[in-house]
C-alpha cells in the first residue's frame, strides 16, 4: 500500500471508530428500551437484540407511570412562551441599541456585554431568593422569566442582523410618516427572519435540554419538564433499565428529528451563538 493509501485508510478508520463511539451507547439504549422485563432479568447482555423489535410496552409505561405526556406539555408551554419572549425582547433591544443615539448608550451596551461573562450556574444561589420573593418559585413563570431575562447571546445575534439592514429603509419609512414602533414592526422585524430562525432553534434546544433551572425552581411533580421528569425515573424504576431507556429514547427522539430536518440552521446557529 502506498503511503497516501495508508493515510486514507487510517483517516477512514478513525472516523468509523469515532462514529461507533458516538452511536453505540445510544443504540444499546434503544435496544434495551425494546426488551421485556424477563429478558432483562435473564441477563441477555447489553449488545443482544431484543426478542421482539416492536415491543413498545416500556414506552407505554414511561408515558403512564413516568408522566412523560405532562412533561412534554410543560416543556412545550415553557418553550413557547420563553422563546417568543426572547425573540421580541432581543430584537427590540437590538433595534434600540443600533438605531438610536441616546445618553448612556455605551453604558447599556457595556451592561449587556459584561453580563455574558457571568455564568448562570454561579449566581443561582442569589437568583433563587429574588425569584422566590416574586412568588414565582414552583411555578412555570420562574423558568420562563429566567430564560427570557438572561439570554444575552440572542441580543447579539439580533444586533448583527439589525446592523446589516440599511438605515435608508428606516429613513424612507420615516418620511412616509412612520414612527419608531411602526418601523420596528413593519420593516426591521420582518427582515430579521434569518436571525429569528437562528434564535428560535438555538434557544429552543437549550430550553428543551435545560435541567438545572427546572430542577431548582419547580420541585413539584406536576410541573415536571422532560429533563426533571426523566430524572425522576431514577427512583421508582430503580434498576429497571428497560423503562429508563425508553424514557431516554423518548427524550432524544424529538431532538434527532429536529436535527435531521434543520441541520444547516443548527450548525450556523450554534457557531454564531458560541462565538459571540
Amino acid at each position: 500500500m502506498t503511503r497516501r493509501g495508508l493515510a486514507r485508510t487510517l483517516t477512514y478508520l478513525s472516523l468509523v471508530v469515532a462514529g461507533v463511539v458516538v452511536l453505540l451507547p445510544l443504540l444499546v439504549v434503544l435496544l434495551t428500551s425494546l426488551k421485556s422485563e424477563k429478558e432483562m432479568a435473564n441477563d441477555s447482555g447489553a449488545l443482544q437484540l431484543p426478542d421482539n423489535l416492536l415491543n413498545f410496552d416500556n414506552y407505554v409505561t414511561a408515558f403512564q407511570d413516568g408522566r412523560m405526556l405532562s412533561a412534554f406539555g410543560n416543556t412545550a408551554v415553557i418553550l413557547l412562551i420563553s422563546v417568543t419572549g426572547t425573540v421580541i425582547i432581543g430584537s427590540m433591544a437590538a433595534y434600540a441599541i443600533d438605531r438610536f443615539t441616546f445618553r448612556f448608550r455605551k453604558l447599556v451596551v457595556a451592561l449587556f456585554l459584561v453580563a455574558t461573562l457571568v455564568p448562570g450556574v454561579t449566581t443561582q444561589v442569589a437568583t433563587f431568593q429574588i425569584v422566590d420573593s416574586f412568588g414565582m418559585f414552583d411555578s412555570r413563570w420562574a423558568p420562563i422569566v429566567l430564560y427570557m431575562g438572561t439570554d444575552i447571546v440572542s441580543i447579539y445575534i439580533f444586533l448583527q442582523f439589525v446592523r446589516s439592514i440599511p438605515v435608508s429603509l428606516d429613513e424612507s419609512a420615516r418620511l412616509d410618516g412612520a414612527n419608531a414602533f411602526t418601523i420596528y414592526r413593519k420593516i426591521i422585524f420582518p427582515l430579521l427572519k434569518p436571525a429569528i430562525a437562528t434564535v428560535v432553534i438555538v434557544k429552543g434546544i437549550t430550553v428543551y435540554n435545560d435541567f438545572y433551572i427546572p430542577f431548582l425552581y419547580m420541585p413539584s411533580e406536576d410541573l415536571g419538564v422532560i429533563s426533571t421528569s426523566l430524572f425522576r425515573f431514577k427512583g421508582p424504576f430503580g434498576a429497571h433499565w428497560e423503562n429508563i431507556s425508553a424514557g431516554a429514547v423518548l427524550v432524544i427522539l424529538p431532538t434527532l428529528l429536529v436535527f435531521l430536518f434543520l441541520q444547516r440552521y443548527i450548525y450556523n446557529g450554534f457557531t454564531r451563538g458560541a462565538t459571540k
Partner: protein
Amino acid sequence: MTDTTEKVARPNVAASAVRKAKAPRKVRLWRGLTPWLFLAAPLVLLITFTYAPVANMVAYSFTDWDGVSPELSYTGAENYVELFTRPELFEVFFVSGYYLAASVVQIIAALYFATILSFNVRFRNFFKGVLFFPYLINGVAIGFVFLYFFQDGGTLDSVLSLFGVDSDRAWLGTPVSANVSLAGVSVWRYMGLNFVLFLGAIQSIPGELYEAAELDGANRWQQFRHIIAPGIRPVLSLTVILSVSGSLAAFEVPFIMTGGATGTETFVIQTVKLAFQFNKTGLASAAAVVLLLIILAVTWVQRRLVPDDKVDLV
C-alpha cells in the same frame, strides 16, 4: 398702513417661532424616550436576574444567612476563610482537574476531526452530523445512557468481552475511575461543538491558499501548520476559555450520574448542596463569588491575549 402691518406682523412671526421651537422640543423629548421604551423590558430583566443576584450574592457572602430566617449577621470574611481552609470544601477543585485534562483531549480530537473533514472525505456530512449530535442531546438522557454504559454487565463490559477482556470492575466505584469515566462522558458530549466551531473556521479559509500550497509541494501536515493553524487561532482561544470555565462549572453530568458520590463532587454540586440542602446561603454565596472571580479572571486573560474583534468568523 405699512407701519402697522409691520408692527402686527412682528409679534406674529415671533409667536410662530416660539410655537415652532416648542413643537420640536416635544418631539425631541419623545425621540429621546423612544429607545428607552424599547429597552425597558430587556434592561429590567437584565438587572433583576443578572446584576441584582450578583450584588446580593456578594452581600450574602459576608453573612451567616441560612436563606430562610429573617435574621442574619455580618461575619466579615469568615466564609472565605472557611472555604480555603476546610480541606473537604477545597477538594472539589481537584475534581475540576479531571475535566480540564478531558478538555485537552476534547480539543485535540475536535481539531483532528475538523481537519480531516475539511478535506474531501466520503460521507462527510454523515460523519459531521454524528460527531455533532451528542451536543444537542438532553443532559439527563446522556446521564442515563452512560449510567447504563458503565453499569455492571452494561455496554462497556459487553463490548470489552467481545474482545475477550473480562472486566469485573465497577467503573463508577472508585473516585479515580469514576472521575475519569465522567470526564470521558463530558468529552463525548461537548466535543461536537468544538469540532463544528473549528470546522467552520477552517472552511472560511479561502481555498486558493491550499491550492497554492499544494503547487508548492506542501504536504497535509505543512498545510495544517501554516494555513489552518493560524486561521483558527481566534476560535481556538475562545474554545480554550470555554473549556476552562466549563471544567470549573461542571455540573450536569456528574450530578445526574453520581449525585456527587464517590469523590465526584464538583464545585457547582457542592455550592448547590450548601445552598439548598444545608441552608448555608452565606457560605454558598462565598463559593459562588470565588468561582465567578476565577472565571472572570480567565476570561480577562484570554481577552488580553487575543484582541476581541478577531473573534468574528460568522
